[in-house]
């Protein structure tokens, strides 16, 4: 598949501080790409440089084959951006916001109405179009911004934490729209998020830490590589269980009231369980989560930004 975003040896320095250190990655057209990393890892720097706001220090960044430094206007008309903080004009109505956007992006006058209806319909806000932005809820504002980001039919949509601060129901809706977009319009979506379960929906994930990309793969592959399934066993006979675990060379950690046993060697584990079955009072197998992947790779817990 054709890659729509290409980043090669991108470095950004602020004085002597290196925010992004020689990173390279590419995003294929029509996919959802998640960019993860703890605060201060270089996420926003990368996004802002791709959106033509920041100037790079060195490297090449291409969107749809256009250079973000030398062909700013071409790049700007191919991308839609939804920032973390609202960038709507709160004094104006939804309609006026969208119309203003159409002017900025040089949309032919006769198409404006049709496009506004299309994007508002997509985010279920068609009936609210005359409402002032100041009266909208946080979730509605985000939907308006997504609609606005789409009205000039961009090839790539950047979403900087599109669901942060929204309630679970709204988050689910936003994701519905995102997936619909990807399927129906073949738009490439580049997003950052703090919610690991959201990252799992994406086609590819890159994790950035201290300015370098530490992992770049599909969620499935990352999970396979960096997480382990564990069995949580509660027993009546701790001595016997410990002996059996040692005998079958299963790694375990003794916790308060239960044993956390690595479930990688599933046959050995089953042996232990069958030999020990009379004494087991409770057993639970837990799949590794994406949070574990993140922790494993960066050594930091991802946390919400203020």
């Amino acid at each position, binding site marked *: 598949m054709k890659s729509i975003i290409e980043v090669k040896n991108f470095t950004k320095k602020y004085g002597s501080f290196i925010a992004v250190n020689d990173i390279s990655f590419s995003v294929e057209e029509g996919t959802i790409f998640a960019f993860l990393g703890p605060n*201060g890892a270089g996420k926003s720097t990368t996004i802002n440089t791709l959106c033509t*706001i920041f100037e790079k220090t060195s490297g090449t960044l291409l969107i749809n084959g256009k250079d973000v430094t030398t062909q700013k206007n071409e790049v700007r008309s191919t991308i839609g951006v939804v920032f973390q903080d609202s960038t709507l004009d709160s004094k104006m109505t939804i309609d*006026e916001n969208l119309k203003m956007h159409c002017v900025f992006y040089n949309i032919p006058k006769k198409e404006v109405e049709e496009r506004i209806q299309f994007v508002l319909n997509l985010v279920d806000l068609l009936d609210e179009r005359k409402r002032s932005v100041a009266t909208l809820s946080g979730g509605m504002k985000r939907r308006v911004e997504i609609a606005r980001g789409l009205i000039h039919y961009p090839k790539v949509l950047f979403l900087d934490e599109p669901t942060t601060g929204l309630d679970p129901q709204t988050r689910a809706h936003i994701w519905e729209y995102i997936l619909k977009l990807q399927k129906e319009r073949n738009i490439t979506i580049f997003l950052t998020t703090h919610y690991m379960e959201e990252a799992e929906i994406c086609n590819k994930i890159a994790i950035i830490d201290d300015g370098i990309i530490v992992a770049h793969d599909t969620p499935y592959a990352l999970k396979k590589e960096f997480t382990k399934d564990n069995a949580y066993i509660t027993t009546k006979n701790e001595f016997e269980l410990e002996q059996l675990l040692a005998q079958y060379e299963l790694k375990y950690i003794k916790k308060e009231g239960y044993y956390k046993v690595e479930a990688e060697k599933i046959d050995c584990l089953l042996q232990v369980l069958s030999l020990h079955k009379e004494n087991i009072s409770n057993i639970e197998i837990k799949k590794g989560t994406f949070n574990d992947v993140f922790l494993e790779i960066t050594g930091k817990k991802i946390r919400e930004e203020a």
Partner: protein
Amino acid sequence: MNTVFALWKRGLKAFIRNRTGLIFSLIFPFFFVYVFGAIFKNDFIQNPIAYMLSGVIIATVFESSLNLASSTVDDMVSGFMKEVLVSPAKRIAVAVGQLLSAATVSTLQGILILFIGLFIGIKFTSWTTPLYILCSMISVGLVFSGVGLFLATKVRSGQTFQIVKTAITMPLTFISGAYIPLELLPDSLRYFAYINPMTYATAFFRMIVLEKTNLSTAELVREGLAIDINGFIVTPVMSFVIIIAIGLIFLILSTNSFVKTDFSRVNRSSNDASALWG
């Protein structure tokens, strides 16, 4: 061109929608006319109400156009400028749109006060006077919109900006002759008035409103319409030239600075570092 017009329309809409602001912008000038008109009764001035009103009108135009600084900073803080920034819209068109809308709004405010003023003391004997008034309001509006926009591009924090703005606007309006006749000011403040562009805008505008275009220089000085700097007389026409010159400088400076400004710098988050690195 579309961008210029769209932003111009946006500015007008915001002005019309802000009812409270509109009402207060009309109440304040008349409050000033009443208070200062009563305090500074001057024997030389034939028509004190018209004298005060002309000063108040031009001060309103001045303050309102300088307000472009505030609204531009608001646009940066609210994120609207960021939206402009990632769009292919030409920045120069955005700057021009903002300047024109601010100049229009301030002229409209001036016209509203002038209109009410017609009922309480301002009289025109020539039909050209309103035209001249309109032209000078538009030019003063444009000049100080330029100053406002220039200030806005230099802002680093939305909160300190409000303080700086008041600190600049207050002395410029009060020590310009608009409210308080210059001859009543102490010497030190009068020297400040000489370097204050508003002093010249006021003198020129007042001459037009009071229809004193054909007075001799000595008479102009006596009526406070020409400025006497230790014997050097700045006539109203010279004042106008000074204003236009300052205006051109600031219009160029502000558009230039606007095109180069990094709007993502002014962020609503208190922690600028996190806005930059996050």
